[in-house]
């Protein structure tokens, strides 16, 4: 100890050498880098693409972007694209509503602090099973039942949202404060009363925040569902792309982008307002809260 203290002034002439990382860390890093390189190379061989393809691709994409300018808004609006944009919004909204209404009561039965094992295990399995099937696949199957059109899309989005919203709401319930529940038990309240007066007021702001977040995701999903004929603006985009009407494609794309950004802004504002309340100003915590909200979404599908 004293040796280093004495030697310090002499060392100060030269830049202090960095402490060596522990030897194990280096091996780990090398190992992970190796795995990534091997995985990358293996994937590359499967793609069947040459370096030339890679270099040419941005140029080809750029050519198409150039052809999209100027966007032919008049032509697509005459074909009812504005109505299709709203149809996408309706699909997303109804899907979110279906998901919220079904998942909310179920999530109480799936939480490990308020539900018995016999109920919560099957319900969690149900949530996880639903979450694992992509919306597009659900929509594809539902089209055989309810026919082509926006209702199949809304139903698919709704079913998928039951899984994702259910998982998130369950987690919110599990991290809630036990105090209010105990108080209601002590006052003689039964299970339903405990949930209604002890749990719902605690979790509702966060859960509604998740509903809105899911709505934002569902707006994007509903724009995609048109690709397989489940209503909304996606169908318009596909038909214009198939006929290679690029100015029209550009116009539809700009409309999709506008829709998504407008909904994100409104919903983001509403979410912050719900969590922060009307009185307080939004402070620096806002970013970390967003990160928290998104970071928690593990596996729920940000797309």
């Amino acid at each position, binding site marked *: 100890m004293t040796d280093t203290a004495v030697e310090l002034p002499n060392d100060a002439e030269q830049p202090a050498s960095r402490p060596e990382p522990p030897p194990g860390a280096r091996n780990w890093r090398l190992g992970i880098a190796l795995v990534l390189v091997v995985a990358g190379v293996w994937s590359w061989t499967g793609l069947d693409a040459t370096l030339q393809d890679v270099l040419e*691709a941005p140029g080809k994409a750029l050519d198409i972007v150039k052809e999209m300018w100027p966007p032919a808004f008049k032509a697509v609006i005459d074909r009812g694209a504005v109505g299709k944009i709203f149809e996408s919004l309706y699909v997303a909204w109804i899907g979110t509503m279906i998901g919220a209404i079904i998942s909310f009561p179920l999530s109480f039965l799936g939480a490990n602090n308020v539900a018995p094992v016999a109920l919560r295990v099957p319900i969690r399995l149900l949530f996880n099973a639903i979450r694992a099937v992509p919306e*597009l696949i659900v929509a594809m199957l539902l089209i055989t039942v309810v026919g082509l059109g926006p209702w199949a899309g809304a139903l698919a989005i709704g079913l998928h949202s039951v899984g994702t919203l259910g998982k998130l709401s369950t987690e919110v319930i599990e991290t809630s404060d036990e105090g209010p529940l105990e108080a209601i038990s002590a006052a003689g309240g039964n299970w339903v009363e405990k949930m209604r007066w002890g749990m719902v007021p605690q979790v509702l702001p966060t859960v509604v925040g998740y509903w809105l977040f899911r709505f934002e995701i569902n707006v994007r999903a509903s724009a995609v569902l048109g690709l397989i004929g489940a209503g909304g603006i996606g169908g318009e985009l596909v038909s214009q792309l198939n006929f290679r009407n690029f100015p029209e494609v550009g116009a539809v794309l700009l409309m999709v982008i506008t829709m998504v950004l407008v909904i994100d802004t409104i919903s983001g504002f509403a979410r912050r307002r719900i969590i922060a309340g009307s009185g307080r100003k939004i402070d620096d915590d806002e970013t970390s809260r967003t990160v928290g909200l998104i970071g928690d979404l593990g596996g729920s599908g940000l797309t």
Partner: protein
Amino acid sequence: MSETALPAAARPRKPRPRLGSYVLVVGLACFTVFAARQIDFRWSSFVDMWTNPLWGRFWPVPWDWVLNRRNVFDALIETFQIAIISTIVGCSLALPIGFAMSKLTSPNAPTFWFTRIVMNIVRAIPDLLWGKLLVTAIGIGAFAGTWALTIFSLAVMVKLFSETVDAADPLPLEAARAAGGRHTPAVRTAVLPEVFPAYVAYALYVFELNIRASLVLGLVGAGGIGRIVETQRSTFNFDRLLGILIIMFVIVVIIEQFSVAIRKRLV
């Protein structure tokens, strides 16, 4: 004073909701009903969904067809390859761009705004629309799908990552700058170590997203297992379809468990 018994515990009066709340609730309810009518909402579908006669054709699954190497396995490998390469490329690019998109570490205002605006626009186009667009631009196949997922995972990754950088501790960076560090080395030594675990966690999450997306990319002609799904659906081989769906389901569940386990240890 405090000892006088209160008469029959009068409950405090509940504050009345504001007029605005009523308007909002009624407005949203009306919008919901209107939207439901616009898209032919039908209660009967909730029953028809389960009693559809077509479901009988999904069973039994012809496992010898599904597990045959040529039919499904090759396309599945392609799915993995698309997801792996687009995650590696997208996440590597996301590191510098994510730093450029954060107020804390952005080199200058024009870079900050330019990356931010471009990335928000890119993120506003869903992954499958990127797939469809790139299939049109550079041709059908896994190559277009890889581009689509690379672009989209870059956009998702920079959003998550730049928000983490925003929330990082600014003091080490100040210290590094005060000691005369140039921009890039200062960020690398003062900010990167703090946010790197989160970066890895997000990368795993993006990989999960990419696996999910690459399963369905084939529906728009961008390669992977979705291509097989689309062929079997259009030829009405629903039993084979179910077999493929079960395999997809198992893969998603395994990858998710794996990624969640690692992420829990990281953060």
